[in-house]
């Protein structure tokens, strides 16, 4: 009876849903701590807009 239940369409859909949920959870935990190449964008002075409004103090 138990095996039949797991192989039934209802049980399969539930297992797939739980697997998907687990995958999303694992990705959410792993993403912030994965190493990423986030080097700053390098620009020349010619590319600078010196008159761009800004909110820096000083």
């Amino acid at each position, binding site marked *: 009876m138990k095996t039949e239940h797991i192989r039934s369409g209802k049980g399969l859909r539930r297992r797939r849903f739980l697997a998907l949920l687990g995958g999303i959870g694992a990705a959410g935990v792993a993403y912030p701590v994965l190493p990423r190449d986030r080097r*700053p964008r390098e*620009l020349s*002075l010619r590319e*600078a807009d010196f008159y761009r409004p800004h909110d*820096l103090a*000083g």
Partner: protein
Amino acid sequence: MTAVACELCPRRCVIPEGGAGDCRIRVNLGGKLRATTYGRPSAIHIDPMEKKPLFHFHPGTSVFSIATAGCNLHCLNCQNWQLSQRGGEEMEQIYRADPPEVVKAAKEQGCKSLAYTYSDPVVFYEYVYDTSAIARREGLNNTYHTAGYINPKPLRRLCGLLDASNTDLKAFDDGFYRRVTGATLQPVLDALVTLREEGVWLEVTNLVIPTLNDDLAMIRRMASWMRDELGPDTPLHLSRFQPQYRMRNLPPTPAEALDRARREALDAGLRYVYIGNVPGHEANSTYCPTDGTLLIRRVGFMVVENKLTADGRCPTCNQKIPGVWK
């Protein structure tokens, strides 16, 4: 593995090989101290001189302003924390700008002055020094906006190239410095005296934060110290606090509190006390301390009227107004 000691600021960080100092940008590479942001500013803007704020130094002119990431203070209320509380590699963008390129760009834009500002130029000292030396040779002025947390020897060396400084005096209380900025008061007072002794045009900014440093007795002590040690002609800018960064629990400074603080500072004997971050306030402008004539009228950071004579005197009573006017 050779550790290096950074002698630039009173923190005197001892940095292990491959490590960084408290400011994040001064690092030990192979036993040598290096500033990772040398020639790599993250902010470059052309601002009015009044924005620094410098009110008695070439009023109404534009200043080519640069900053790199990093700071040796960690103020809970830092307005520029996205620049100051990061290392160079954490920035979204960085410009490649060696000192000669900076000076060339400033001249091309018609600026007569450079400002090292926004974060604290103390931490990108070598970049400031080399750029200032070239700017001086090219006839440009060097201005500095700093918290003044620097050791005397490097400051004196830099003073030979500086024309003006707006230096923060964040409170006249060592406990405030320790709690709010992570620094200490005495080195800042020493730096202010050094700037004065070395003949750099000096203005002072005090950000008035409700309940933390707005006590009138403390304002009085600060103004009296300035009068005695820096001279009564040293301009003081009392600035309005806005909730920022990690200090969002306090309200903006009420205009009345700034007015009270200004009266206290004037009563203590300072002759030029301004109110900042309150656009349109009458204390944005400069008045003759002898007869009260309105000399320079400002709206926001704009000079809308300048009645000073060519040699910097009051047109009514001929009182000499201290400053660098041309």
